[in-house]
């Protein structure tokens, strides 16, 4: 299971890549494997306000529907519109082309509550 060392992770199996006050959000390799083939992603609207722990979208696989839970609070400044036609990128490249959205975070200190790669690795193995 691929868990990049430079990312932070939520208990809901989402990752964030921190770049200043902006974070890119996606789902982890563990999450995409558990979901199976992703066939639809409901993206948040640009400008939407996310609250940490609250649902902000949906991922549908051939088997089921899963909510996306915001790993941090903030404002959506960019969404990966390519996922509308190629939702399978969540499976093939979850940390790259399968990114979901970019969020301007309200409070950078909230990132500290997220796990590092080592802690997330322990979570997925437990």
């Amino acid at each position, binding site marked *: 299971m691929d868990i990049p060392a430079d990312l932070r992770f939520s208990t809901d199996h989402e990752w964030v890549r921190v770049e200043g006050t902006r974070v890119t959000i996606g789902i982890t390799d563990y999450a995409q494997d558990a979901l199976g*083939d992703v066939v639809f992603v409901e993206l948040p609207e640009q400008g939407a306000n996310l609250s940490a722990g609250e649902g902000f979208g949906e991922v549908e696989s*051939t088997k089921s*529907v899963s909510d996306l839970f915001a790993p941090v609070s903030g404002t959506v400044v960019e969404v990966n519109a390519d996922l509308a036609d190629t939702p399978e990128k969540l499976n093939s490249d979850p940390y790259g082309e399968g990114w979901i959205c970019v969020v301007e975070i309200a409070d950078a200190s909230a990132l500290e509550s997220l796990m590092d790669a080592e802690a997330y690795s322990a979570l997925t193995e437990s």
Partner: protein
Amino acid sequence: MSETSPTSEPRRTALYDTHVAAGARMVPFAGWEMPIQYEGVIAEHTWCRTHAALFDVAHMAVVDLLGEDPASALERLTPAGITTLDAGRQRYLLLTNDAGGVIDDAMVANIAPGHLRLVVNAGRRDVDLPHLIAGLPELDVIERTDLGILALQGPEAAAVIERVMPGHLPGRFLDVVTVDDLTVSRSGYTGEDGVEIIAPTERLGGLADRLIADDRVAWAGLGARDTLRLEAGLCLYGNDLDESISPVEAGLVWSMPKRRREAGDFPGGARVSRELAEGPRWTRVGLRPDGRRPVRDGATLTSADGADAGIVTSGGFGPTVDAPVAMGYVPPAFAEPGTPLVAEVRGKSVAVTVAELPFVPANFAR
């Protein structure tokens, strides 16, 4: 895929270890622990449509009906034509209740004089067996727990059988050949050509090993089985059929020959006759959602002007169609292909269009 059995410990088929070694994800299904997927549902689905996919369906129940005239006896429980089923042939049938609902859908094969063989749904086995035993007192009704089923499905399935199991390929769709302790039928649940092999449990592993060794064959799980049958417009008991839905509503009039329909001499015959004369209150149709969001079972349907228009009973993503597909029951006024409807999916409205079934044309060896 919502059927569950009250038994606590799920049963395992003879091939459980084979599935785990092949990388399967095992899930509880109808009282069994079954492979939902190996490589992935879309890859397995596509392999079945283009090559040959191997399914372990040993959870389904094999029931032999033995006696002097099992065909006449079985016709008391079904509107299908059984006395007209030739030896070496197989047929789809519905077991109906007195209210005209469907107790189960099944396949029946004429194995030999005095010997019919039924294959019934795993999730209905506990209902079907007592029903058959009570309804067929002059026959021996014997569940064959010593047998299991493998399905090999896809355009290359017949060629694989001819190479790996020479002399075991039935000639055309719904033919059945019996060789020693194997019964092979040209049938399946995918819309593709293929076979279903009924074998003694202890032979399943060896047969599976020989079939999977052929480069044209790959394992497929229950996930792909569901998307394949949905694209093929085939009913899943518990979703598209239940004890309240009639054969006429389900669009399965073809499974009732004229002789049986006119006589009405089967459980629920009065309702079937009435619905054939007056039309059913609703009928099963295909549905094509706009966009890519799947519409799944349980979603309610409304017409363009907000009138109640029925319910979705099966739905998901169709890998061959490369779009979401669904089936549901709608009043006759909305059943015409092309009719626009709206499905409610977790509080969101999704536009759907009534469509012809199947979504993918059948590829049988006629």
